[in-house]
């Protein structure tokens, strides 16, 4: 690489210039000793780079994730060495398992102190290795441009994921000739395997012969920006399509071929019929155990077609008779032209029948309850009513998450932000901050349980300071509801450490000068939701729901998808 007009700057300034070169104008983070030179540059570049001070480093990662998920761009989080860096780990692990593009930058003690157990020294490279797509420790300023370029390239390309760059303090101070060149490839890394037309042909043949085909799509459709191709494929083939929790919103809720969610708390029809279909077309999903239940009884009758960008996912959990490697935007495009127009009225009627059963046994009571206590389902239905399905819904982990994903309505993609694979309680509040900043003109509603809310409740401070207009709905049942449900069903109602004595959430929100309201009665719900949605400021709404409601349907751990329980 030739160094044309080099410009002597510090490593710290170089980090900021690299971010600007990558189009980054927003970072989340928390300062501290080992990253102070970089923060000093953030101060100088504050007109070009907006830094959001979260109240905990974990919040910075989840905010960066939320931002990445709604904007489709790489989220950036920063922290100092030692505890700052270790506090990032949960968010990094979450981003790794949910394939979220993120670059984390950590300060590190000066290189001559490495390994000396210096103040706030921790081996963050060692710690983050199993949960990053790539990581690297920079000890010389001259490495910064190339490594930063590589970090962004790796984070966003292929199957996205988190990258951590650890920069020693001396490298941040060091002067060098800065010259930036974007990364366009790494020789040991093939982000997208080339599409093989024979694979497409074989899969298309299988689809064209199918009598009872079914599609399960995942987040790959969203990450691959293949929503249009996917919709065209579904519509031409006429095949009913179900979604994994991270695939949600890629196809509108009211699409006639959208048959609902698969998995542990998914819909009755698509779960049951997974074990009756003759061809199962998996698009950008990875057959997580929460989707498949017992693998030895999962879709054994079906030929499996798997469209996947990551070769390591092929036949990892479910054997793929017809793998199609590649970016699903391309592979779907190729499939569309090779599949016949299909009509599967009798087969789709089966989904309808099961849907009716589920409505009578579960949905009716969730959404239109006749009992006195409020349900989580009716709160979601009320939110649908006032957002028109056009909001970004950010959820935490637990009962409220399952209910929200089951009942929230969506009309556009990149609208569902949740912690899927890792199941990180505390995700939603900071993720909602990022989600709103990644989609400023959209309504962002965080739906959180009383347990998860208190894991990152300090991010109310970030909302207060930035005035980011997120709407926070806490569905409060004074329990860690999902664990309590399992205790009820599988541990003879021994509610070990799941009951919560909660504070006055409204008072807490008001302490941060966030408009807040509590709802305990059905007749107050709609008006409260309406007020919240119409507000152009941050808003907190606590909905006190029935304490011991359960989420159904449910596939107990280790059971088959055909053993899904309605009660």
């Amino acid at each position, binding site marked *: 690489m030739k160094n044309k007009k080099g410009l002597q700057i510090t490593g710290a300034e170089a980090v900021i210039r690299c971010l600007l070169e990558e189009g980054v104008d927003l970072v989340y983070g928390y300062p501290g000793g080992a990253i102070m030179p970089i923060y000093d540059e953030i101060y100088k570049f504050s007109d070009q780079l907006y830094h959001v001070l979260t109240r905990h480093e974990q919040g910075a990662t989840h905010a960066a994730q939320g931002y990445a998920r709604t904007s489709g761009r790489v989220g950036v989080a920063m922290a100092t060495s030692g505890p700052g860096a270790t506090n990032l780990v949960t968010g990094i692990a979450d981003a790794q398992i949910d394939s979220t593009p993120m670059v984390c930058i950590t300060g590190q003690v000066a290189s001559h102190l490495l390994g000396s157990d210096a103040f706030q020294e921790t081996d963050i*490279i*060692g710690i983050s*290795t*199993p949960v990053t*797509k*790539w*990581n*690297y*420790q920079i000890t010389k300023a001259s490495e910064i441009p190339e490594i930063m370029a590589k970090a962004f390239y*790796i984070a966003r390309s292929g199957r996205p994921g988190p990258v951590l760059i650890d920069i020693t303090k001396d490298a941040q101070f060091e002067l060098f000739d800065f010259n930036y060149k974007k990364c*366009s*490839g*790494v*020789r*040991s*890394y093939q982000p997208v395997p080339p599409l093989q037309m024979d694979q497409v042909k074989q899969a298309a043949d299988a689809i064209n012969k199918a009598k009872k085909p079914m599609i399960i799509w995942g987040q790959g459709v969203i990450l691959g920006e293949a929503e249009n191709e996917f919709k065209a494929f579904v519509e031409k083939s006429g095949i009913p399509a179900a979604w994994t929790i991270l695939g949600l919103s890629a196809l509108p809720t009211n699409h006639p071929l959208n048959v609902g969610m698969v998995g542990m708390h998914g819909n009755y029809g698509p779960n049951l019929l997974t074990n009756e279909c003759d061809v199962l077309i998996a698009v950008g999903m990875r057959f997580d155990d929460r989707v498949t239940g017992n693998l030895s009884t999962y879709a054994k009758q079906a030929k499996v077609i798997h469209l996947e960008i*990551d*070769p*390591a996912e*092929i*036949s*990892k959990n479910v054997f793929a008779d017809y793998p199609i490697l590649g970016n699903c935007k391309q592979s779907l495009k190729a499939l569309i032209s090779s599949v016949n127009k299909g009509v599967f009225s009798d087969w789709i009627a089966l989904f309808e029948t099961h849907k009716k059963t589920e409505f009578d046994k579960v949905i009716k009571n969730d959404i239109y309850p006749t009992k006195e206590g409020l349900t989580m389902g009716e709160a979601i239905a009320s939110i649908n009513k006032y957002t028109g399905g056009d909001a970004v819904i950010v959820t935490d982990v637990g009962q409220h998450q399952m209910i929200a994903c089951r009942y929230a309505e969506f009309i556009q993609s990149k609208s569902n932000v949740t912690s899927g694979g890792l199941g990180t309680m505390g995700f939603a509040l900071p993720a909602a901050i990022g989600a709103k900043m990644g989609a400023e003109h959209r309504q962002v509603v965080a739906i959180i349980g009383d347990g998860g809310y208190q894991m990152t409740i300090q991010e109310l401070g970030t909302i207060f300071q930035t005035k980011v207009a997120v709407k926070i709905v806490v569905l409060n049942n004074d329990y860690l509801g999902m664990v309590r449900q399992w205790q009820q069903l599988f541990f003879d109602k021994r509610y070990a450490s799941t009951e919560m004595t909660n504070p006055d959430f409204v008072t807490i929100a008001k302490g941060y000068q966030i408009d807040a309201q509590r709802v305990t009665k059905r007749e107050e719900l709609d008006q409260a939701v309406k007020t919240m949605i119409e507000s152009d400021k941050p808003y907190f709404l606590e909905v006190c729901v029935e304490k011991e409601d359960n989420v159904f349907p449910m596939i107990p751990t280790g059971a088959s998808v055909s053993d899904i329980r309605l009660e």
Partner: protein
Amino acid sequence: MSDITRYTISIYSENNVGLLNRISAIFLKRHIDILSFSTSQSEIQDVFRFVIVVDMTEVSVRKIVQQIEKQVDVIKAFFHTDEETIFQESALYKVKSSSLFEERQIQNIIKESHANIVTVSPVFFVIEKTGFRHETEKLRKDLAPYGLLQFVRSGRISVSKAPMGISEILNNFNNQNKE
């Protein structure tokens, strides 16, 4: 299908400081024992080679090799059965020099084992033996009665009978980047 077999995993990679940790983490996460591990420069400049020996089923070894290959700094990873590779291990044996002169039998053991004497000093001598595990192991057992001061055996090193085509992969990358 589910038979446990001995496999040699060969990995070509960039020489990145953290890669060793990253690869061992893949085994750790799945609770898999590594029987032997060795790393060295490969036939290509700046490309490193890992040789890892494991006892696994074919289904599992295939999955783990995919996980290894997925790592950004890994160029390519393979797995082979013993029949598909040429493999050796090296062992060093440090023995008291006195036993070389006092015990005639030890000279026959060395001769029969086709081992090499690496160094001889008044106090000790060092024998080197390269071969299969049972060969280095036999020599260890034979020498044990004469007082082995130290014994060490290397990890397996192995080359595959079939070509691995790494240069081709790297050339393709370079050509793509020129376009």
